[in-house]
C-alpha cells in the first residue's frame, strides 16, 4: 500500500545531537531526522590527512553518514606522539550525497630540541602544512553488494601546502613546498566474513612525491618524480552492533633521499599501525592505535641515521 513519504529534512536538523540520532545511538533515544541515513560505522574514521579512512590510509568510503539523498560530514582531531616528535592533525570533511567528499586538515609536526642539534639550533620548532582533499566515489557499494566481490572504488587527491618549507624541508633537500597526491581506493565490507564477524578490507594506491606526507616537503635529492605506493587496511568488527573494531594498516612511502645536503641519511620507510576503534553511535568515534610513522631522524648531526618511531595515536571524530 502506498503511504505518504516522510522525507528527512536536510542539513538544518543535523546538529541536534545524539538525541536526534537514529536507532543505534547508545542512549537509545528516539529516532531521527538528522542526515545520518547510513548504517553505523560505514563512514569510517578520519585518517591523518583528513580523508575518510582508517588512521593512516584513506578508504573509498565517503565521510559522514549521509546517504545519496543527504549531506553529512565530520570534524576530527588526532594526536600522535613518537620519540622526539608530536604530530597533531585536525580538520573537517563534508560528504555530499555519498558521492563526493571535500576535506581540509591542518597538520603540525612538533620537533623536540634534540632533532635540530645538527643545524646548530636549540629550539623546539614545528612544521605545519595544510591539506585540501577531494574524493569521488566511482562505483560499487562497500556495504550492500554482498553477492559480489566488487568493492567500492573511489579516486581522490590531496593537495598539500607546507607552511614551513624554508625552515627545515628545504634544508634537508626537498624540492617543493607543495604537492598533490592522487589515489585510488577500494574498500569492501564482508558481512560475517571471518568466523561470523564483519570484516573490512581496503587497498589504496597513491601516486606521491611527499616526504613524511609532505611535512618534509615534496621530492628530494634522490628522486623528484611520482612514485606509486601501496596502502592497505584490514579490520574486524567485534560485536553485533559494529561498535568495536580492531585492525591494522600499512602505508608505503617514497624515499627521495632527503638529508643528503647535510650528509644525513633519512631513508623514509613505511607507516604501520594497529588500532582499536570505538564507534558508540553516529555522533562520535574514537580510534586508539600504536602507530609507527616510519623513520624520522632523532638528530640532524652529520652521519646520523633515521630511527624508527613508534608511539601512541589517538583520534576523535564528530559526525554531523
Amino acid at each position: 500500500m502506498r503511504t505518504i513519504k516522510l522525507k528527512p529534512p536536510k542539513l538544518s536538523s543535523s546538529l541536534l545531537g545524539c538525541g536526534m540520532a537514529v536507532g543505534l545511538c547508545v542512549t537509545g533515544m528516539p529516532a531521527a531526522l538528522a542526515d545520518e541515513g547510513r548504517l553505523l560505522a560505514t563512514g569510517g574514521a578520519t585518517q591523518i590527512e583528513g580523508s575518510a579512512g582508517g588512521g593512516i590510509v584513506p578508504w573509498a568510503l565517503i565521510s559522514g553518514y549521509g546517504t545519496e539523498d543527504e549531506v553529512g560530514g565530520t570534524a576530527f582531531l588526532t594526536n600522535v606522539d613518537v620519540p622526539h616528535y608530536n604530530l597533531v592533525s585536525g580538520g573537517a570533511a563534508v560528504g555530499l550525497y555519498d558521492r563526493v567528499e571535500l576535506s581540509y586538515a591542518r597538520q603540525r609536526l612538533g620537533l623536540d630540541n634534540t632533532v635540530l642539534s645538527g643545524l646548530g639550533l636549540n629550539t623546539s620548532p614545528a612544521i605545519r602544512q595544510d591539506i585540501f582533499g577531494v574524493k569521488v566515489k566511482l562505483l560499487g557499494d562497500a556495504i550492500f553488494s554482498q553477492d559480489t566481490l566488487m568493492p567500492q572504488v573511489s579516486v581522490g587527491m590531496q593537495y598539500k601546502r607546507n607552511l614551513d618549507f624554508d625552515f627545515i624541508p628545504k634544508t634537508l633537500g626537498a624540492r617543493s613546498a607543495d604537492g598533490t597526491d592522487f589515489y585510488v581506493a577500494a574498500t569492501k565490507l564482508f558481512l560475517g566474513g571471518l568466523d561470523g564477524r564483519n570484516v573490512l578490507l581496503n587497498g589504496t594506491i597513491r601516486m606521491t612525491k611527499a616526504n613524511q606526507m609532505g611535512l618534509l616537503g615534496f621530492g628530494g635529492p634522490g628522486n623528484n618524480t611520482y612514485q606509486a605506493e601501496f596502502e592497505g587496511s584490514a579490520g574486524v568488527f567485534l560485536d553485533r552492533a559494529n561498535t568495536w573494531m580492531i585492525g591494522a594498516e600499512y602505508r608505503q612511502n617514497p624515499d627521495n633521499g632527503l638529508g643528503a645536503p647535510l650528509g644525513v641519511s633519512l631513508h623514509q620507510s613505511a607507516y604501520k599501525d594497529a588500532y582499536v576503534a570505538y564507534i558508540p553511535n553516529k555522533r562520535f568515534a574514537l580510534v586508539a592505535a600504536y602507530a609507527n610513522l616510519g623513520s624520522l631522524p632523532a638528530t640532524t648531526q652529520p652521519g646520523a641515521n633515521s630511527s624508527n618511531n613508534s608511539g601512541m595515536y589517538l583520534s576523535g571524530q564528530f559526525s554531523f
Partner: protein
Amino acid sequence: MKKTSAILGGLLILSAAPWVVAADAPSLYDQLGGKPAIQKVVDDMITHVAADPRINTFFANANIPHLKMELVSQICAGTGGPCTYTGQSMSAAHKGMNIDSAQFNALVEDLQLSLADNHVPTGLGNKLLAILAPMKKDIDHK
C-alpha cells in the same frame, strides 16, 4: 620488487573471499533455529518498525500478517530452508514507493534490534544480513 609484491598482496587480499563454506555445513536456516525462530525475529522486527517514525508510515495500511508471512517465507528460502518464496519480486513490491536509502537502512537497524532482542548469535545475524543486503538495489529509489 618489495613494492610490487606488496601491491600484488593487497590485490590478492581484495580478490579472495575470506570465508569458506563446508559442503555439508548445516544451512543458515537450521542454525538460526528454523521457522519458529525466524518468525519470532520477523515479528519483533515489525514491532520495532511500527514504533519507528522514520518508516512506520509505509506500513500504516499494510496487511501485517500477510507481510510477516512473506518475509518469513523469503528469509526461509534465502537461508536454505524448505520454503519457496512466491511473493512479488522486490522491485515490483516496492515500485513507486520512493523508499530512500535512509529508510531502507532504518529497516535494517530495526532488524538488527530484533536480532539482538532474540539473542541471535552475532555471526548468524551477520550472515543473514549478508543474504538480505543485496536486495537494497531492488528496493530503494524505485
